[in-house]
């Protein structure tokens, strides 16, 4: 159990600055997810916490102690890699045991620890196999077990589910959430998948080009995005953000907040358009609609084959953003006057 604090972190790769100036506080026992598009510096941040990458400048505090010069092995943390990084020439047991042996733990205690974690992740029948003879999901479990057995202060995970198929990924997601509940340890999890981030994290750090765009709970990041980037990154399809309706602001609304029946009691926008494409997802449908403000996405269970359509957006579902992309908070009454409704 540990808190992590990054202060004034900077990382250059040669001439290129990947992270200009990062300040981040990860609370003890939290499940923090670093999410963002590829190349946003999330993995680099994780690797700096792990000690695999040296920061160009800045401090890394774990439990208040600067660990910038402490080698990775002495930081008392564990890491799960994207491609698992298992030792291919060792059995499952040896893979898990390898880190313990170096800590000088006696054989009897090692066996007890290994059996305990293998019970949890369900590896017991495969102990004498080599990684080459395991499926992707099983390898993932070995990587998890190897991390767990060390009882680290912090778990670092670098896109651990991205090599699994969709079904397995969904079930592993739930298992990881359960694991976090059981262990109560700090988890730092890197992913580019917003669904993973939203469903697993209790604290989400959204990054872009080495800068934190927003750090908040999944609920807040969805309902209260602080900038256009956050608003458009979280949510599928992304939020519609368009200009031309107001002079100084761009207006946004989420595709799933659209109504096809005219609401009687609430103020709303009315938008006319032409349906260009239609994706039947099952219960719901995605339409892309051409309007006078540009292309818009609509996500609804309203089923129509017509090309011409009119939809309504309640004022409470609208977001306003300034020209520089930052969110401008307005009350519904202010919005009504602005939009002259």
């Amino acid at each position, binding site marked *: 159990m540990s808190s992590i604090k990054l202060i004034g972190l900077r990382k250059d790769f040669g001439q290129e600055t990947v992270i200009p100036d990062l300040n981040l506080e990860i609370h003890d026992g939290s499940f923090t997810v670093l999410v963002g598009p590829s190349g946003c510096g999330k993995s680099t941040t994780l690797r700096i916490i792990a000690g*695999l990458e040296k920061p160009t400048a800045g401090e890394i505090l774990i439990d208040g102690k600067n660990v910038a010069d402490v080698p990775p092995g002495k930081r008392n943390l564990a890491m799960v*890699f994207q*491609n698992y990084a298992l030792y*291919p020439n060792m059995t499952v047991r040896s893979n898990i045991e390898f880190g313990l042996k*170096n800590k000088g733990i006696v054989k009897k205690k090692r066996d007890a620890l290994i059996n305990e974690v293998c019970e949890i992740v369900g590896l017991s029948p495969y102990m004498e196999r*080599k990684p080459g003879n395991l499926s992707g999901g099983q390898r993932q479990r070995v990587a998890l077990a190897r991390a767990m057995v060390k009882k680290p202060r912090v778990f670092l995970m670098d896109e651990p589910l991205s090599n699994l198929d969709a079904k397995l990924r969904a079930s592993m997601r739930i298992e990881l959430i359960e694991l976090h509940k059981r262990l109560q340890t700090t988890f730092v999890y890197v992913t580019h998948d917003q669904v993973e981030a939203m469903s697993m994290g209790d604290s989400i750090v959204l990054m872009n080009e080495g800068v934190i765009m927003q750090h908040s709970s999944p609920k807040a990041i969805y309902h209260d995005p602080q900038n256009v980037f956050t608003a458009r990154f979280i949510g599928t399809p992304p939020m519609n953000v368009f200009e031309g309706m107001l002079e100084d602001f761009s207006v946004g609304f989420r595709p799933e907040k659209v109504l096809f029946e005219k609401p009687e009691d609430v103020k709303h926008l009315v938008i006319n358009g032409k349906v260009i494409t239609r994706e039947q997802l099952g219960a719901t449908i995605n339409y892309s609609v051409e309007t006078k403000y540009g292309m818009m996405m609509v996500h609804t269970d309203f089923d129509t084959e017509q090309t011409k359509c009119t939809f309504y957006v309640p004022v409470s579902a609208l977001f306003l953003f300034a020209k520089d992309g930052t969110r401008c908070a307005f009350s519904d009454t202010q919005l009504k006057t602005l939009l002259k409704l």
Partner: protein
Amino acid sequence: MDAKASPLKSRCWWTGLLSHLKGYLLISPAIALLCIFTIYPIFWLIHSSLYDGSLISKKRNFIGLGNFTTLWNSIDFSQTVWNTVIYSVGLVIALMILSTLVAVWLNGKMQKRLNSLTLAAIFTPHIISLVSVSTIFLWLFDPKIGAINYVLTLFGLPNCPFLASSKTALFSLVLMMIWKGLGYYTLLTMAALQGVPKEIYEATAIDDVPKIRVFFRITLPMISPTLFFSTIVCTINSFQVFETVNLMTMGGPVNSTNTLVFQIYSDAFKYLRLGLASAEGVVLLAFVVVLTVVYFAFLGKRVHYQ
């Protein structure tokens, strides 16, 4: 076999051959060359090892295993075999250890430019002709005017007779071949090292595994298929050492650098004892066959990639 396939198969055995005729035609030149220049000579070698006879006379008598008995009882020949084995084992062990160490060193976080410079420097001897190398080393090794002894003298060290003494001649040849072969085997090992995923080393860093343990438990097993390949190739090559012996020592002094292939050459073309030379050839063949079999037997077990 399903019912449809069996009448086709039973129609005639040569329909299969006929339908693949084009393929067989295309490989026939290669097969013919292989038969003429490799397969046939092997049988001819075994055949003539059972006769006495010489290169200049057509008359020869069947003597069964007589040539082999002669070899078995010859102290000189056992010395030759022994020399070859010592030379090969010494060279292989030295080359494998040194090339692995150099490869690991060059693969580390050093100056990139310095690394490629070093690699180029140690690889260059590999592309120099063995004849030139031998000539150069004849001079370098010279006990009186040689450069190596000159350097030794500068540091106040005793001079070494190198090729002039039966005690150091074989060792000198090994030394020269290490110089020549190091770059090649280092390059092979480096390629293997670069095939080890970086994340595995990162995992060991997080597991706090000491460097020396990482080398023996991770690196070495991961590159073992390449090391094994190098070992076998190097052994087979060293068993057939000839040029250096012929150019530098002629098997001397006092038979101390006489090796199998040089012995075969001497017996066949100097003493014209073709039968005996063939028998020696069979002995060499046996050594190489055993090594190759060992290589293929172990190769399958040594691979543990995913």
